[in-house]
C-alpha cells in the first residue's frame, strides 16, 4: 500500500513534467501567440534588475470578550503589527530571485522574531513552464499567499484559513496557459511537507498532539509531500477565477518514530470574481478548505511519574470556509468617495472532535468551533496603501464571543 502510494505520486509528477516539456516543444508558433519583444530599458548598463519592496503595518484594536457565567472584559491597544522586506532580483530574462523577510512582534512581553517567509529561485524554461525551488508558499486556496496582505479588504484574517499547507521547502513547476478565450494556470510541487506535532509532556488543552506544523525548514522523515493547484479563468476578461488545490503527505511523523506513517491530505477550492457595474466595482470571494490527518490513539504522560494517559480517539479532520463581498464606487468623480470600499464577510471553522462525542466537544488542543462575521470599511490612499476600519465578531461554540474593532494602516512600498 505504501509502495503503491509512492509509485502513484512519482508517476503523477513525471506525467506533469512530461506534459509541460512535450507540449511546449510541439506548441504551434504563430503571430497570435508570440509575445511582443520587450522594449529596451531606458536605463543604461547592468543586466540585473532589482526592487526592494516591503511594508510597514500598525493597528489599533478594541477587544471585548463575553463569556456566560463570567464577567465581560474589554481592552484596547495600539500594536506594531509587522515590518516586511521583499527583495526581488531579476537576474536575466529567465532567472528570478524572490524573497520575503518579516519582523513579527511578540504580542506579550515585547521582543520580535525575524521570519523568512519565502526564498525562491524561479527559472522560466518555456513561456508556459517555470521551474522553482526554495522556501515557497504553495498555491493553496485564495487567502494564504494572495489575499493575506494589503489585498485583504476585510482587515482581519478569516478563521480556518491558516491551517492548511503553508510555506514549505521544495521544488516545483508552474505556468499560465491561454486556451482560446479562457485561461488555465497550474502548479505542481514536491516539498518536505507538514510535520506531526507529538507532545508527550503537556497535560490538558495546551497539548497540540495531532496537529500539523509547517514551520520547519528541514524534513522530519524521508517522505515528501506532493501538492498542486489548477486555476481556471473561463471568461475572456479574466474577471472570474476558479481554483482547486491540494496536498498529500504520506508520512508526517518523525523518522523511525511510532507516528512516522501517519498521513495527511488537504483540499481547497476557491472563487475570485469582480465586475464593474458602473460606477460600482463589486468583488466576491469565497474559499473552502479541509484537512484530514490519519486517525491515531496518542499516549501522553501526565506528570513526572510517567503514568500514561490515553487520549480518547478523535477525528483528526478540520475544515473552514469564508465568503465575502465588497463594493467600491470606483467610477464616481469624487476622489474621496471612489477610494472607499465596503466589505462584509462570514465564515466558520470546524476543528477536530472526539469520536462519539457531541458536536460541542472541543478538539484535544482546546479549539472550539467558530463562526465569524466581519464588516470593514477601507480607504485607499494609493493602490497599495489601505486604511481599514473593521468590526469583527467571533463566536465560539461553548466558548466566549469576542468582538473586535480594528483600525489598521498598511504602507506598502
Amino acid at each position, binding site marked *: 500500500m505504501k509502495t503503491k502510494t509512492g509509485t502513484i505520486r512519482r508517476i503523477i509528477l513525471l506525467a506533469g513534467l512530461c*506534459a509541460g516539456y512535450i507540449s511546449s516543444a510541439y506548441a504551434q508558433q504563430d503571430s497570435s501567440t508570440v509575445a511582443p519583444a520587450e522594449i529596451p530599458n531606458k536605463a543604461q548598463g547592468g543586466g540585473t534588475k532589482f526592487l526592494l519592496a516591503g511594508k510597514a503595518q500598525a493597528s489599533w484594536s478594541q477587544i471585548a470578550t463575553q463569556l456566560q457565567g463570567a464577567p465581560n472584559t474589554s481592552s484596547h491597544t495600539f500594536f506594531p503589527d509587522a515590518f516586511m522586506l521583499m527583495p*526581488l532580483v531579476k537576474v536575466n530574462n529567465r532567472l528570478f530571485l524572490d524573497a520575503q523577510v518579516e519582523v513579527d512582534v511578540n504580542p506579550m512581553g515585547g521582543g520580535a522574531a525575524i521570519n523568512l517567509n519565502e526564498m525562491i529561485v524561479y527559472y522560466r524554461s518555456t513561456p508556459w513552464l517555470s521551474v522553482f525551488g526554495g522556501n515557497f508558499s504553495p498555491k493553496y486556496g485564495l487567502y494564504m499567499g494572495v489575499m493575506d496582505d494589503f489585498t485583504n479588504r476585510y482587515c482581519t484574517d478569516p478563521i480556518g484559513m491558516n491551517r492548511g499547507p503553508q510555506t514549505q521547502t521544495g521544488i516545483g513547476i508552474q505556468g499560465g*496557459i491561454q486556451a482560446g478565450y479562457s485561461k488555465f494556470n497550474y502548479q505542481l510541487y514536491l516539498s518536505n511537507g507538514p510535520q506531526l506535532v507529538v507532545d508527550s509532556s503537556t497535560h490538558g488543552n495546551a497539548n497540540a498532539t495531532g496537529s500539523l506544523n509547517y514551520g520547519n525548514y528541514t524534513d522530519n522523515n524521508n517522505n515528501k509531500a506532493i501538492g498542486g493547484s489548477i486555476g481556471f479563468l473561463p471568461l475572456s476578461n479574466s474577471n472570474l477565477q476558479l481554483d482547486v488545490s491540494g496536498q498529500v503527505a504520506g508520512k508526517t511523523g518523525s523518522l523511525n518514530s511510532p507516528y512516522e506513517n501517519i498521513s495527511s491530505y488537504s483540499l481547497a477550492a476557491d472563487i475570485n470574481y469582480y465586475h464593474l457595474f458602473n460606477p460600482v466595482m463589486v468583488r466576491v470571494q469565497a474559499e473552502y478548505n479541509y484537512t484530514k490527518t490519519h486517525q491515531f490513539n496518542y499516549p501522553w504522560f501526565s506528570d513526572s511519574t510517567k503514568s500514561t494517559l490515553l487520549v480518547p480517539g478523535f477525528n483528526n479532520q478540520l475544515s473552514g470556509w469564508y465568503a465575502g463581498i465588497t463594493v467600491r464606487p470606483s467610477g464616481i468623480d469624487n476622489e474621496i468617495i471612489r477610494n472607499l470600499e465596503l466589505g462584509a464577510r462570514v465564515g466558520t471553522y470546524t476543528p477536530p472532535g472526539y469520536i462519539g462525542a457531541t458536536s460541542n466537544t472541543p478538539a484535544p488542543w482546546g479549539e472550539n468551533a467558530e463562526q465569524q462575521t466581519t464588516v470593514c470599511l477601507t480607504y485607499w490612499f494609493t493602490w497599495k496603501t489601505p486604511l481599514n476600519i473593521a468590526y469583527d465578531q467571533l463566536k465560539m461554540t461553548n466558548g466566549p464571543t469576542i468582538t473586535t474593532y480594528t483600525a489598521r494602516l498598511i504602507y506598502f512600498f
Partner: protein
Amino acid sequence: MKNKSRNRIISLTVIMGITSIFVVMINGCKVPESIANKSGAQLWGENCIRCHNSPDPKTYSDDQWDAAAEHMRQKAILTDVEITKIKAFLKLAN
C-alpha cells in the same frame, strides 16, 4: 480500504487535471484574434485588479517594473504574453 479509495480519488483527480492541461496546451494554442490583440493597458486593467487595485505606472522605475513584473508573473501565474504586454505598458506610461 477507505485510505485506498481516498488515494485513488485524489490520484485520479490529479491525473485528470494534468491530462486536461496537456490537452488544452495541444489544442488551445490558436488564440482568437480578439484575445491576441488585447493591449497592455487592457490586460493591466483586467488582470491586476483581480487581487489588488491596478498599479499606478509611476510607482516604480523601468528597472523596478522589470523585477516587480517577474514577481507578479509567478505570484499570479500569468501567461507570458500577458505579463510582457503589461510590463511594456507600465514602462511606457511611466
